[in-house]
Structures are given as structure tokens and as C-alpha cells.
């Protein structure tokens, strides 16, 4: 099972999302202007949107590569339940994409004049929210696995499903920055992630089986 992670990492694309995230965060101050007050106010949103898009970049690799070289057929006939395969692949995607984003986000927060109180919450929010992004993305990738060049379709399908995570994630960070209570967005964000992790592996495995026919 752990080899899946290895396979995915060797498949390349690792670091691509991270580089995209970095560039986006550097471009925003150039576009918006260097005023610290403006940047500080939009920083949580910018970081979250950046994380979302960076995550999206590598999504279509989750199943498409395995579909092309036949591995997916073989995995479907293997003793490992397909639900577990989906969950592991989503986890591998998070480790290669989500986790690096969480780790560099404080540096980017610095670039965007994020208030000091918000750093802790930024990390908490991303840590809680990005697994949901990977899991929802894996579901989207399963939906579009048989489609040639399904990347665009995948983005259209997945981005709306990212809205709740984005809303509560960004809200959590900006509330943290202003020193308000963060209980509600924190609970909702954790709830979304837990729900996604509980339900979507089954949904994605079902969709994969249909797509393999």
C-alpha cells in the first residue's frame, strides 16, 4: 500500500503545485500594489485561492496515468478494495501537494503582510482544509478518468465543490487575524474534511468501476 505513494511520487508533478502557489503569491502584490493594509486584508483569501488552484493542477494525474498504462484495471482486480486505493491515492496527493503548501504558507503570509495573530490559524486552516481538497479532487478525477484531456472538465466539476472549504478556510484565517472567535469556521472546516474522507472514497470507487467498464 505504501508503494502507491512511491509510485505517485515517481510519477512526477511533485513540486509543480508548490511552485505555482509561490508564483501566485508573489504576483498578487505586484498586481494589487504594495500597500500593507490592502494586502493584509486580502491575504487569507489569496492564500486559500492559491492553495485551491495549486491543488487543482495535479489532480488529473491521480487516476489518468494509471488508467492509461493499465494499472487501474489491475488494481481493480487486485485484492485491495478499490475504496482503499482511492483513499491512499488521495492521501498521496495530499502529501505531495497539500502538505508542502501548508509548510510554505507562513513564508507567503509574510510576503502578503498577513497579521501576526493569523499565522497559527493559517496553518491550522490549511492543515484541516487541504485534505478535503485532495479527497474531493480524487472524486472528480475518478469521474473524469475515461475522458480524453479531461483536465478542464475536471476543474469545472471540482471547483464548485471546493467552495465550502474555501469559504470557511478563508473565514477562519481572517477571523484569526482580527482576534475574533474561530470556533464556528473551525468546526465546519473540520466537518467538511471528515465528511469528505468518510463518504468520497466509496463514491469515487463506485464511479471508477463504472468508468472501467
Amino acid at each position: 500500500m505504501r508503494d502507491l505513494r512511491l509510485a505517485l511520487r515517481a510519477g512526477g508533478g511533485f513540486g509543480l503545485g508548490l511552485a505555482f502557489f509561490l508564483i501566485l503569491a508573489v504576483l498578487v502584490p505586484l498586481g494589487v500594489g504594495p500597500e500593507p493594509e490592502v494586502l493584509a486584508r486580502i491575504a487569507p483569501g489569496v492564500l486559500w485561492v492559491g492553495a485551491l488552484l495549486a491543488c487543482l493542477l495535479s489532480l488529473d494525474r491521480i487516476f489518468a496515468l494509471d488508467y492509461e498504462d493499465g494499472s487501474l484495471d489491475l488494481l481493480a482486480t487486485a485484492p485491495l478494495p478499490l475504496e482503499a486505493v482511492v483513499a491512499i491515492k488521495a492521501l498521496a496527493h495530499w502529501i505531495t501537494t497539500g502538505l508542502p503548501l501548508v509548510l510554505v504558507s507562513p513564508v507567503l503570509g509574510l510576503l502578503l503582510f498577513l497579521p501576526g495573530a493569523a499565522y497559527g490559524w493559517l496553518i491550522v486552516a490549511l492543515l484541516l482544509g487541504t485534505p478535503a481538497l485532495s479527497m474531493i479532487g480524487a472524486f472528480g478525477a475518478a469521474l473524469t478518468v475515461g475522458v480524453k484531456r479531461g483536465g478542464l472538465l475536471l476543474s469545472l466539476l471540482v471547483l464548485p465543490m471546493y467552495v465550502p472549504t474555501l469559504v470557511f478556510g478563508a473565514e477562519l484565517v481572517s477571523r484569526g487575524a482580527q482576534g475574533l472567535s474561530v470556533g464556528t469556521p473551525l468546526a465546519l472546516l473540520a466537518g467538511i474534511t471528515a465528511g469528505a474522507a468518510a463518504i468520497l472514497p466509496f463514491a469515487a470507487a463506485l464511479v471508477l468501476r463504472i468508468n472501467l467498464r
Partner: protein
Amino acid sequence: MGLRVCDLAVARGGVPLLEGVNFALAPGQALVLRGPNGCGKTTLLRVVAGLQPALSGTVEGGEAVAYAAHADGIKATLSVAENLSFWGAVYGAGDVKAALERMNLRALSGRAAATLSAGQKRRLGLARLLVTGRPVWVLDEPTVSLDAASVALFADLVRGHLAAGGMALIATHIDLGLPEAQELDLRAHKARLPEPGDAGGFDEAFL
């Protein structure tokens, strides 16, 4: 323990291809499927492997299947040995070293799979069968891009598998050198094409 297929009918893309397919494999037996291109060999094998639902009929023993098709499921960036140990770990069985030895891949074991020739990739794909530890091999044209020596090696491999109580279901166009295997010509089971306006079910509207 065996593989039993009863009155199976299969379809591809909504078009019925085969019907009334019956066969049974007992341990130590092999069955070779024959038939022209497009007659439904691959579809039948996918149904037996459980990748696709049957139109009607039953497959018993399909959970013991190791499936190998045209695509070998090889990751180009991993080495030969890494590819094989991955599948060994997934199936939780099998001896990777012995499998490499058996398919003459030992000298290549450190090479990245991307640098293998088509025939070498195929040999790696067949070596995967050895690490699955599954009794029923379902093989879709296993000898594509193999040279004569490797075909003989493959026949040997299947014979060894049968001798150990395994079973093999093979679709192929060439003579494998397995005289003991039974043959099934799928032309006899060609499905009657539905009359125009015959079916018209709910699914039909979407095809």
C-alpha cells in the same frame, strides 16, 4: 476450486457480442479462446475478471483471477524490480526474485522500466502474474511483441503454473505450443444482432 462460466452473454458499448458461452476450468487445465478481431475475446475476459458486468449468465470463481491485458501496468519511472515488488506488495504474495529469474529479467532488474523494449515490458507484465499468487490467470493476447524464444518461455511458464494446480484462460491468435490446452472458438457464440426497434429500453436512449 475452479472457474465456471454458465450461459454467459457479454456486450461492449451496448452491442451484444457473445451469448451462450459455457466452459469450466478445473485445477491444472487451460483454455485457449480463438476468434477473429472484434469477436469479443477481450470483453469476455474483462467480464470473467470482474471488470465489467455480464449481460446475463454467471461467472463462478472470478475472485481468484489474475488479469493481464494489452497494457502491462508498468510505471516508466520505477525500475523493473520496483515495479514488480509493488504488485507483490499489493497482492501480499509471491517471490519477486524468483519471478525475475523465471522471466529472464534479472539482468534488467535495476533498469528504469522506461528504457525497456516492448518485448521486455511484456515479460515484466507476465512476471507480475507470478507474484500475484492467484490460481486463475486470465491473459489477453499475452504473446504480443514477444520473440519466439520468449513465447516458448511463456508456454513453459503456463505449463509450470498448470502443473502447480493453476488454471489459465488465454485469448490469442498464434499457436502457443500448449497442445494440452482445450480450445474454444467464439465464432460459434456470436450474439444475434438485435432487430432494429427491438430493444429500445431506457439505457438504449443514451447509447
